[in-house]
């Protein structure tokens, strides 16, 4: 199976790789939301972190990913899309948009679902830390 040029580009030049500190640090920071989804036994773990400013805008986003090229590209793309969005706007990002942007084949749809899940998980974490009750439901898959 050949990869689309966009997947290859994100894979070779991933955007916003990293984190805002060690797992212990970010657990304490209320301006940072952390989403980790997947499991190593399933062959995919995606970690997404958002940094939210006082106005409620996502000022920065970082990812780390253990997964296939499509999963890496999906999470890299997600960080690009998240930056500058409000938390509410971020929740409108759908895995189908990622599939379309990266021209993912059907067998790789779950990699995009993982990206959507990690966005929701990061926002839920941010809201929990800031006393907002989470009303997000994880996309079923």
């Amino acid at each position, binding site marked *: 199976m050949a*990869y689309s040029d966009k997947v290859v580009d994100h*894979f070779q030049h991933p955007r916003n790789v990293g984190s805002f500190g060690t797992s212990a640090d970010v657990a304490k920071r209320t301006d940072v939301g952390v989403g980790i989804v997947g499991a190593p036994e399933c062959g995919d773990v995606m970690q997404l972190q958002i940094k939210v400013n006082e106005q409620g805008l996502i000022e920065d986003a970082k990812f780390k990913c253990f997964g296939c090229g499509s999963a890496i590209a999906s999470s890299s793309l997600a960080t690009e899309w998240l930056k500058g969005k409000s938390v509410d706007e971020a929740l409108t990002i759908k895995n189908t948009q990622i599939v379309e942007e990266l021209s993912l084949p059907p067998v790789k749809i779950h990699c995009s679902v993982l990206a959507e899940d990690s966005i929701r998980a990061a926002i839920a974490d941010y809201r929990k830390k800031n006393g907002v009750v989470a009303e997000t439901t994880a996309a079923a898959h």
Partner: protein
Amino acid sequence: MAPKLPIFLDNAATTRCDPRVVEAMLPYFSEKFGNSASRNHKFGWEGEDAVELAREQAAALIGANPKEIIFTSGSTESNNLAIKGAAEMYAKAPVGQTGRGHIITATHEHKAVLDPCKRLQREGFDVTFLEPGEDGIITADMVAGAIRPDTILVTLMWANNEIGTINELPQIGKLCHEKEIILHTDATQWVGKMPTDVERDCIDLMSWSAHKMYGPKGVGALFVRRRKPRVRLEALIDGGGHERGMRSGTLNVTGIVGFGKACELCKEHMEQECERLVKLRRKLETELSKRIEVTQVNGHADKRLPHICNISFGFVEGESLMMGVKDIACSSGSACTSASLEPSYVLKALGVGDELAHSSLRLSLGRWTTEEEVDFAIEQIVKAVEHLRTMSPLFDLHKEGIDISKIVWQAH
């Protein structure tokens, strides 16, 4: 000299046909195109002579009599014929009943052995699937422990296609002969690479395939012992009674000629080639293990084929690793590369943890693999693993001293 890219390190999947093999085959397409079963004219005789020469070349490679060679379409067919054919022939009860006999195989066999065994299980045979140890090896003791009074067939591969480990075949052969149980071995990855003597090694049935040993695809053979014991098989394909009635159908003369030539060349080159490949494989394994932390060579360290290396790089996923080594053609045990989204069942059978199974690469060397190519592969793999680890959340956890196997992951 920089190697020509991409580099082919997937010789366990298939090999390049040797140009000498192609040359031997060419006349049999449009000049000597006769049907080897045509007994009454020159065209037929030419075909028959060619097939008989190939039969001698194949037999010589494994220490058999030419009469004991049955040509097939490859190892999948040979395995099916051997396993189903022997089970039906030696069954202890007729079709439709249970308790038809006991068969021994192993969990990390090729699907072309497992699936026929599973079908026989549904058809009233009992099947024991032996579990290898962590080293991937099936020993004679394991087989001895599983033999029952009603055991009719043992089918165990000589060497494993994913990890290259070698089962205790001559010892298992001796055991089966003592107990008067038919022994079949899928020797697809073994024959042509390693010295084989079906007499000395006590083999009754043996499958192998041309395209894994520098011959053409779609042709192979089954060795069927003719004396001590004389093994009989129920045919799967009925028709004109070709191949001693065990495999009807006009022979693939061209392919068989190529197969014969491939066998001859393997015999001729075996010793130096084996030595050369062991050196290259060792270099690959030691360099990668030395330069990349948390690396594991899967399967027994020494009891393995010269050309297959299976290695896991912790914290990086196999499919993305293959994408990172885009100039190297190889394969991975990762789920992301498989249609079933399951990691390699072979590595799982060895008890390799799921995450290391996802992180595995199989690199398999061949007749045209050069040291320059191996050096290039080492550099590219080291670079790709480093690149992927900068992105890996698991590598971060590892560096923070957190044991990943102890984390409870949220299921999704």
